[in-house]
Structure formats: C-alpha cells, structure tokens
C-alpha cells in the first residue's frame, strides 16, 4: 500500500484521444485498480490543458491533499510545462507531476479501440508506479552570457545579428566567404515586388560592418564548440587574407594590377571572372580583398608580387607571410544561419547543363541580369553578344524528384516567374515556362503570376523530358529543343529555343551534417537542420542555446528567412534579458558511502563532469558540467550513482506498471519478479 496520494487525470483531447480510447473506462479502471498504488482520485476531462482542466487538478491537490499527479494526455514534449505549472500553483513541487502520452503513443497510432484502451491503462499504471518515486526538485539556474554567435552572414544571419546588436548586446558574426551578403547579394531583382536586391541589402550589410556591438569575422569558420547553453566556448579559425586589414584602404589597386584572371565559381556562379586577389563584389563588407592562394602566381610559382608592388599604402597592406588566426570567444547563445547550396544541374544529364552552351542555371541567370554582373545586366547567350529570341524556363530541376531531392524547393516557381518577367523586359523574347504545378502562395505572389501572364509569357504544364541540340525536323537546326509533354493537351511537344534557364533546386549545405554535429544539433534525412517543433518552435533546436534561421532549416525565400532571423533573435534576446535560464534538473550524483572507487564510470563522461578524488578514493560528479545523460548511472556496478528524474527505482517502477496488463488487458501472469 503506497503512502502517496496520487491523482490521475485522463484527457479526451476533444476526440483526438477519446476517438480511439475509452477514456471514461480508463479513468474508472485507474481509480479502482491502482488504489493500492496510491491513486485516490481519477478523472477524465475534455481538455485537461484548458484552464478549467488545470483548475480541476489544482482543486484536488488542495482539497484532497494529493502528493502526486499523473496526467495522461499528449506528449510531455508538448504540455509537461503546462501541468507542472498548474501543480506548482497548488503549492506542490512541480516535479511530483508525471505525464504519460496516450495520444501520440496510443490514440493516433492505433485503431482498435478495445486494445488501445487496454494499452492506455498500462501506460497510466506505469506513470502511477513511477510517480511514487519522484522527489521534490528545483530547476537548475544557469547564467546566460550576454554575447551571441551568429554563424553565416546571409540575409537571415544579418537580420538576426542586427536585431540583437540594436538592443545593445554583443554579437559575433562568422562568415566563411570574404564578404557577408550571402546568396541575396548576387541577385538583381527580388520577387514579387521587383525591388533591387542590392538596394535593400547593402545598407544592412554596411550597418553590420559598422555596428559598435557586432564583431565580424569574415573569411573565417567555426572550428570547435565547447560548453553548453549560457556559456559556450567557440573556437574560430580566421583564414589568412594575406592582406593587413589595419592598413588596407580597400582602394582596389591590387585587384586591378593582378595579372591572374580566375573564373569566379562562388559569387559569379561561374559566369564571370575575378582576380587572384579579389573582393567578391564592389559593395563587399568588409571592403578588404583576399588572396586566393590556389590561383595566386606568387604562391604557385614564387614570383609576381604585383599586388604588393602596386599597393599604395604605407606600410604595405599585402602580407604574404600572414598566418591563419585561431580565436576563442565565449557566448551564451548561438544562431546558425548557414543557408543553402544550389542543386548541381550537371546531375541531370538530359538537361545538358555543361554540354550545351546556352543552358544556364538560375544563379548564372541572376548574375546575368545583375547590372554589376558579367554582362552588365544584358540577357545574352554564352557567346556574350547574341540576344535570345526564345527562352525556356524549366521548373523543378532536381526538386520533387526521387532520383535527386524529393522535396519542393519552394522558391523556384516565383523565381521562374521573375525570370520570365526579366527576359520579357530586357529582350522581348518569347518565354516558355515548363512546370508541374504552379505554387504561388503568400502575399502578392499570385498577383505576380497574373502580371507575368499579362506580359504574355507561355506556360506549359509538363515536366521537361529532355533538352537537346539534336535537330529532328526543319526549324530545329541550331536551336535547343525542349521536349516535353504538354499534359493539358496530352501531346508531346518539341519547342525550339535559343536559351534555357534551369530553376535548380535548393539543397542543404554540402557540410551540413558536419556543422550539425559540431553544434550538437540534428539533421533531417535531407540534411536540413531540425527545429524543435515543426510548427510551434521553428527556430529553436533540441539543443538549448542553439537556434537556426533561414534556409539551413529548409528551402525558404527572402521574406521567410528575414522573419526567421528576427524570430531567432527574439528568442535569444528574451534569454539574455532574463539573465538566467532554468534547466531541467536532470543530473547524476554519487552517494559516497556506496562508491567503491572502481573508477568504471571515470572515462564515460564526454563533458568531463566526473572527477576522482585520489585521497578519499571516491568519484564525484560536478553538477555544473553534468548534462544528465545517465550513462554513468547505468554503468555503476554498486549503484552508487543516481540520476534525478531517471533513478533505477523510477524506471523499474514504470516498467512494472507497463507490464501489468497484456495486450488484450488480461493480467500478465508472472512469478513475482524482483521489481523495485
């Protein structure tokens, strides 16, 4: 007979649970059959999480003097906090409340009502037996370092950094490339408003560069992350620019004089050239160039030094001896905004990219349209002079395709519409859009579709089968032929054009998995970073203190990326302002009397929380470092280590409860095993 007075509360969750589980029956059963386990009251209610439901619990605690509470409802990941707070309001320690999931783990995944009802009973029995062993706990308070690290200087990262810095807190921004700006800096126009990307982006880039509270590390990468929420230690490698940024004025003469021309695969998307010493683009922030040693004549062949010779500054800004710098910073929170890679269109041979000169990728086309780009904004063929008379725009390249990426890349439809408009505007050419489905949700997007229809672009509903220069009939010679089924008329069509633009999809960064591992977060199967909750917590991750924003979380356009950047910043700011963060009191500790000093646990902790006292020959655990995984608890042969909230007693008691009834609900016949 248990000394505890336990209340059991079974939620209908509307019909979400009661649809498949006979909740009345379950709560009745708990009241009658779990009496000896201490259940004194058992109720069911339509919505336990509603204020009325919570008040029900509070009232019982007060009036019936409950000492423990079990709520059978949705996943604890959703409402554990809600019910703990309710319990707390009734002056019971919040950690004396246990939540068991009969929605995600029962009603939503099973169909047979009888069986689901029986399973719910066992799950509750488990909770009841477990809760008896709960102890009063206080949340762990960790101080939050005011500084924040933002990884990635694209639009999402820029937005996040500015939001935080503007409210007066320090920000470190780490960017891999020589300049911040990300993909957006490459674009000419932005949909649906067609305002110029540079005009709206560069002011933000400049304010990041000048901001008193932002410390910018460009051409740098995060090497290592130690510590945990509130107090991360981050190691950054600042790659050598071979340019002394203290003296360099960014005059650009070195770039002018450098004899080595290189195809720029990053900023110009391979469509244009840069020098071996270069600034990615005129408005680059910071304004300092870098020397690309793989292509620099001096670094490759030991002579040239043109940049140094012509550098006007005193002392000379070019420093061939410069080394990488390793910098260590401490921050309280981290925002990852590492963006996306463009799908490599060469992986779809039938579209001819790389073989057929006048097949371009979306990024190449963006650069082509950009007034500061390789063609000064002229839409021309690969020869650099000819204006196309007919242009095909191919949607869903590498997207919505099980051979490549199974997901929709979100931005391509609108981007393609933008391209259609730009082609019309700049060349008056015939434009053919080949699409599977037109996807133009969100404010003013479909209106933009309407606008492009008005402009007379052609829309053919059919995924392009192949793009070829193999002429089959007169009129096809010297053209690129798009072969596709026009599914709306059910006929195969061959349409000769001069130029093709492939709306290549968005992919997670090639090194996304590595980065995720470095920051202790996880990736989806497509290697996008996983948010804490797909709807309710889109910028947090399962790792406290690490947030995500922008396309690194999934394909996203500019407005969405900006919104997420701001959202992540808001989450971080609230943390910083509350100065402290309450953590789950899940920690391991050693009972010295029981510790035999066998040291089995000593090398198990990746957080170095386990210390061994040679003098007393006992092990001790530093609660500040312990993260509560419980590996040492499981390892200790003399049960000298215990873990709060996950003690052996609690787990074994729950196990016993779960095994009370068999699948059909009959009692599990068993010799009385040695349960806790």
């Amino acid at each position, binding site marked *: 007979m248990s000394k505890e007075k336990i209340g059991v509360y079974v939620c209908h969750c509307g019909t979400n649970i009661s649809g498949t589980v006979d909740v009345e029956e379950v709560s009745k059963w708990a009241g009658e059959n779990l009496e000896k386990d201490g259940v004194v009251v058992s109720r069911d209610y339509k919505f336990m999480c509603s204020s009325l439901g919570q008040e029900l619990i509070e009232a019982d605690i007060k009036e019936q003097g409950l000492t423990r509470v079990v709520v059978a409802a949705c996943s604890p990941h959703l409402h554990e906090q809600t019910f703990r707070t309710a319990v707390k309001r009734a002056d019971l320690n919040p950690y004396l409340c246990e939540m068991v999931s009969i929605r995600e783990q029962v009603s939503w995944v099973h169909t047979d009502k009888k069986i689901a009802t029986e399973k719910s009973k066992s799950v509750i029995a488990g909770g009841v037996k477990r809760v008896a062993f709960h102890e009063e706990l206080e949340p762990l308070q960790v101080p939050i370092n005011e500084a924040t690290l933002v990884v990635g200087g694209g639009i999402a990262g820029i937005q996040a950094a500015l939001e935080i810095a503007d409210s007066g807190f320090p920000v470190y921004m780490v960017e891999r490339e020589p300049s911040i700006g990300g993909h957006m800096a490459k674009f000419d126009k932005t949909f649906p408003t067609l305002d110029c990307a540079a005009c709206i982006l560069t002011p933000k880039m400049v304010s990041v560069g000048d901001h008193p509270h932002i410390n910018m590390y460009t051409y740098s990468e995060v090497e290592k992350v130690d510590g945990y929420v509130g107090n991360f230690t981050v190691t950054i490698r600042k790659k050598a620019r071979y340019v002394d940024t203290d003296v360099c004025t960014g005059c650009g003469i070195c770039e002018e004089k450098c004899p080595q021309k290189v195809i720029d695969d990053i900023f110009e998307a391979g469509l244009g050239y840069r020098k071996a010493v270069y600034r990615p683009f005129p408005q680059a922030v910071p304004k300092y160039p870098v020397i690309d040693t793989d292509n620099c004549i001096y670094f490759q062949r030991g002579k040239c030094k043109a940049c140094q010779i012509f550098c006007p500054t005193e002392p000379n800004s070019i420093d061939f001896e410069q080394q990488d710098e390793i910098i260590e910073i401490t921050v309280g929170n981290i925002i990852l905004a590492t963006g996306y890679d463009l799908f490599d269109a060469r992986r779809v041979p039938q579209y001819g990219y790389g073989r057929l000169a006048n097949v371009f990728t979306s990024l190449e086309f963006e650069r082509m349209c950009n007034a500061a780009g390789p063609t000064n904004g002229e839409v021309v063929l690969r020869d650099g002079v000819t204006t196309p008379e007919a242009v095909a725009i191919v949607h869903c390249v590498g997207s919505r395709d099980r051979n490549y990426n199974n997901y929709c890349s979100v931005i391509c439809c609108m981007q393609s519409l933008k391209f259609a408009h730009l082609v019309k505007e700049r060349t008056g050419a015939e434009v053919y859009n080949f699409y599977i489905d037109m996807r133009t949700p969100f404010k003013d997007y479909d209106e933009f579709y309407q606008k492009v229809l008005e402009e007379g672009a052609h829309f053919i509903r059919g995924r392009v089968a192949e793009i070829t220069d193999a002429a089959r009939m007169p009129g096809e010679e010297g053209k690129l032929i798009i072969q596709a089924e026009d599914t709306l008329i059910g006929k195969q069509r061959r349409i000769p054009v001069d130029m093709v633009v492939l709306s290549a999809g968005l992919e997670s960064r090639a090194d996304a998995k590595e980065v995720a591992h470095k920051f202790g977060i996880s990736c989806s199967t497509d290697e996008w970073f*996983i948010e804490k909750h797909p709807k309710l917590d889109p910028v947090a991750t399962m790792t406290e203190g690490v947030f995500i924003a922008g396309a690194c979380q999934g394909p996203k356009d500019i407005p969405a990326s900006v919104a997420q950047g701001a959202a992540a910043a808001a989450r971080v700011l609230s943390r910083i302002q509350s100065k402290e963060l309450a953590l789950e009191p899940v920690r391991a500790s050693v009972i010295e009397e029981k510790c035999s000093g066998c040291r089995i646990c000593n090398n*198990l902790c990746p957080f170095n929380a386990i210390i061994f006292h040679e003098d007393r020959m006992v092990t001790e655990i530093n609660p500040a470092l312990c993260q509560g995984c419980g590996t040492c608890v499981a390892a200790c*042969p003399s049960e000298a280590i215990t873990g709060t909230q996950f003690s052996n007693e609690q787990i074994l008691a729950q196990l016993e409860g779960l095994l009370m009834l068999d699948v059909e609900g009959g009692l599990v016949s068993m010799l009385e095993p040695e349960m806790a």
Partner: protein
Amino acid sequence: MDKKFEPLIIGFTCNWCSYRAADMAGISREKYPPNVRLIRLMCSGRLDPTFILKALAGGADGVLVTGCHPGECHYLEQNFKAARRFSLLKRMLNQMGIEPERVKLVWASAAEGVRLAKEITTMVEEVRALGPLNWPGVVAEDGNGYVAHLAPEEVSA
C-alpha cells in the same frame, strides 16, 4: 480456433531522438501494432542492461532499444557506449537460449517517425512468430533465480 498470440514488447527510447520519433509517428498518424509500450530515458546510454532482463523477466516477450544514429548523440557519443553494452548483453542472452530477435537495437532520429513505426511493426511480427517467451520456465525454480545467474550484482536486491 485458438486466437493468435499477442506479444508484449517494451521499448526504451531516447528523449532526444526516438521518443520524438514516436511523437512524429503519432503526429503523422503512422499506424503500428499496439503491442509495444515505451519508456523514456534521457539517452540510450542510460540503459542499464538489467532493465532489459527485468523487462523479459517481468513478462515482456521482447525488448526494443532505440537511440540516436551513431555520431548524432545529443550527448556526443553515449549511444556508442549503449551499443557496446548492448552487444555484450546480446551475447549473454544468446548463451541463455533467448532468440536474438527478441532483443533489438534500432537507431531512429527525431525525423524518422515512419521508420520507427516500420521497425516496431517488423519486430512485433518477428516476436509473434517466435511465440511467448515465458521466462520463468527458462530459469531456475525459485522466483528470482534468473537474477542470480544473470546479473550477479543483483543478488542483494
């Protein structure tokens, strides 16, 4: 006709991946047999091998252990330790004549609700095919005899 045997399976899940995978399965209404009942741990590293023995002793016909994919552990590397312990335990169970299919280790990330549901379904089928474990038969006469020759440090218990 006799009705078909319904195995009882205990699943140990990691709070950061597989428990969330179970949530995900629910959210996306992935169906799987009701024969499995889950226990949440903070990490597969917390799994004390004796939990598995007690589950089997306590009437479970099989035990499913789940954790984060190698290299994705929320606590950096603890799932490797879990894996090592697990393989040890398996060998032991083998020696005691317990079919390997009854105890299974599965990695499932928070995103893999569908995968977890599939794994559960297959395991239930496999164990159903094996029939009841009925542990006490396997072990010594006295009620806790199994404890004696399985997990020495438990004798005191």
